[in-house]
């Protein structure tokens, strides 16, 4: 399977657990869901995917949306504005 380059941004608890706010990586993950599961295993993220939302290129997306080369992916922990 062909690898693609994706830009990932981390916020809040995920930023702290990852130890950085952004990274670029090559992945063979086909979907955002697969990408999160890979990262969760690698970095021991505490939040299950079911608690998060995902945005691709600054739009909320379905977890099964396909990833393309150059996409920016943001995993969104439970929000708490106000």
């Amino acid at each position: 399977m062909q690898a693609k380059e994706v830009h990932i941004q981390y916020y809040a608890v995920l930023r702290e657990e990852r130890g950085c706010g952004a990274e670029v990586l090559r992945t063979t993950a086909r979907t955002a869901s697969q990408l999160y599961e890979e990262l969760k295993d690698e970095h021991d993220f505490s939040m299950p995917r079911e608690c998060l939302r995902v945005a691709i290129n600054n739009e909320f997306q379905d977890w099964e949306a396909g990833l393309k080369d150059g996409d920016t992916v943001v995993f969104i922990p439970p929000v708490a504005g106000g």
Partner: protein
Amino acid sequence: MFSISSKRLKDAALKKAMSNPRAGAMVCFEGWVRGHHQKKKVIALEYECFEKLAVKEGRKIITEARERFGILEARCVHRVGRLKVGETAVWIGIVAEHLHAAFRACEYIISQVKIRVPIWKKECYSTGDSGWVNFRIHSEKDG
């Protein structure tokens, strides 16, 4: 209009920008930093946001409120950064011809902002520790 600000929110200036000759009602809501949470003393809140999507989603909410309640204008500004107890974290202003629409639109906007806009807050306690709001509930619920 929805925006994010890293500077202290100035109520008078925000309100002044909302004048409208058709308006008969102006409702304003301010969300303040509370000094306690679940028996813990809170000394500050640290807010951060994913600004591009926060602004996009916030604008959607404002548009929805205008369509649903027929108000004349709505504005919401949310702070980011470290806020002390008593500071305004979110400011909402609604201008409408009549009061009921203004109150309902205001409540709609704050309730939707709290559940949809990618903004996070961390509580900093007097004991020196801290915690992300909403994080523990979700992480414990699902293991």
